[in-house]
C-alpha cells in the first residue's frame, strides 16, 4: 500500500514529468499563458495518460513481450487512436467540453508525456494498479506545473520585462526556478 502511495507521489512531484523528465515542454511554452487553460489541458492529458497506460499494459501483457522491438510503433499508434476515439466520444456525448478542449486534444497525440509514460511503465515493469497510479500521479504533476506556470505568466503581464527577455526565454528561466524548487523533493520515497 505504501509502495503504491509512493509511486503516486514520486510521479507527481519527485520525478515530475515536466520539471525533471523534460516531457511535454511544447504545451508549457505554447499553451500556458493562462492558469485556467493550463489546468484544462493538464486534466485532458491526465485522462489520455490513464487510458494509454491501460492500453500499454494490455499490449505488453498480450503481445509485446514476444516482440519488444515493435514497442515504440505499437505505443505510438495506440496513443494516436486513443486520442482519436476520445475526440469522437466527446464530440457525441459532450459537445461543450469538446469545444473547450478542441484544440488541445489532437496536440496530446504528439505529446511526449503520454509516450514517455508508456515507456517508463514498461521499463519499470509496473503492474496494472501501479501503472494506473503512475499515470494519475504523473498527470497530477503535469496539471500542477501547467497551472503554476500559467499563473506566473498571468502576473508577468503586469510587469515591465526588458525586450531581450520576452517570449520563450523568460518562460524557460521561470521553469528553471520552478524545477529548482521541485528539486527539494528529490530523495523522497527513494524506494521506487
Amino acid at each position, binding site marked *: 500500500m505504501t509502495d503504491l502511495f509512493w509511486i503516486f507521489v514520486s510521479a507527481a512531484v519527485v520525478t515530475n514529468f515536466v*520539471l*525533471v*523528465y*523534460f*516531457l*511535454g*515542454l*511544447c504545451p508549457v*511554452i*505554447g499553451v500556458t499563458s493562462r492558469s485556467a487553460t493550463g489546468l484544462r489541458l493538464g486534466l485532458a492529458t491526465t485522462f489520455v495518460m490513464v487510458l494509454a497506460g491501460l492500453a500499454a499494459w494490455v499490449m505488453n501483457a498480450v503481445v509485446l513481450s514476444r516482440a519488444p*522491438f*515493435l*514497442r*515504440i*510503433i505499437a505505443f*505510438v*499508434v495506440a496513443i*494516436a487512436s486513443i486520442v482519436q476515439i476520445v475526440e469522437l466520444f466527446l464530440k457525441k456525448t459532450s459537445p461543450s467540453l469538446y469545444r473547450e478542449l478542441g484544440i488541445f486534444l489532437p*496536440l496530446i497525440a*504528439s*505529446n*511526449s508525456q503520454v*509516450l*514517455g509514460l508508456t*515507456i*517508463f511503465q514498461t*521499463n519499470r515493469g509496473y503492474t496494472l494498479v501501479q501503472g494506473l497510479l503512475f499515470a494519475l500521479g504523473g498527470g497530477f504533476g503535469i496539471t500542477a506545473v501547467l497551472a503554476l506556470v500559467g499563473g506566473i505568466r498571468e502576473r508577468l503581464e503586469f510587469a515591465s520585462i526588458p*525586450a*531581450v*527577455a*520576452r*517570449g*520563450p*526565454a*523568460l518562460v*524557460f*528561466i521561470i*521553469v*528553471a*526556478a520552478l*524545477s*529548482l524548487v521541485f*528539486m527539494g523533493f528529490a530523495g523522497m520515497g527513494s524506494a521506487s
Partner: protein
Amino acid sequence: MSLIVKEKSSPTDPRVVLTRGLWHENPVLVQTLGLCSALAVTNAVANSLAMGLATTFVLVASSLMVSTMRRIIPHQIRITTYILIVATFLAIADMVLEAVVPNVHAAMGPYIALIITNCIVLGRQEAFASRQPVGLSFLDALGNGTGFTIALLLMGIPREVLGSGTFLGVRVMPEAFEPWVLMLLPPGGFLMIGLLLLLANWHDLRKLARARPAAPAPATAARTASAPAREPEEALV
C-alpha cells in the same frame, strides 16, 4: 511548439535549403522545437552528440522516404503515415545505438524512443518533404538535423564543462574547480536553454538596432548617387 511550422519561404536554391536550418532557422534556437530531447540528454557532450546524430539519421531517412512516396500517401492519413515511417527508422537507430555505444544508449534511456515526438522530425515531413523533390528534402533534413546537433552541443558543452569539469570525459578545468552540480540537474538544462534564447534575442535586437539607423542611409546614398546623374542634364541645359 506544434506541428504547424510556419514557412517563411519555400526556397528551391539547394544551398539555401541546406544552410538555413543551421543557424537562421535553427530548429531549437529559433523555432523552439524538439526541446524535450534537447534538454534531457545534454548533461554530457557524448550524449548530446549521440542524440544529435540519431535524430539527424531518423530525420534524413524519413524525409527521403516521405519525399519518395509523397504522391502515394493519401492526404487524410498523412500524419499517421509519417509517424509510422519515423517510428520504423527510429527502431533502427535505437538498435544500432544499443549495439555500438551501449553505455551512451543506457544513459539516454527512454529519450531515444521519444525522438518520435520530437516536433522537428514530423514538422519537416509535413512542411517540406511531403511537397518537395527527393534531393531537396534530403538537403533540408540534413541541414535541420545538423542545426539540431549544433544546438545540442551549444547546450551540452557548457553543461558538461561547468557541471563536471570535463569535456567528453577528459578533465579540462583545474583541480581546484568546484563542479557546478546544478548544471547537470534538470534546472541547469532549463537555465541553459533560457540563457541561449536570451542570447539569440539579444543578437536579434542588436541586428535590428543596427539596421534602423542604417535604413535612411541607402536613401541618402541614392540621393547622392542620383545627384551627379542630374548634373550632366543641368550642364546640358
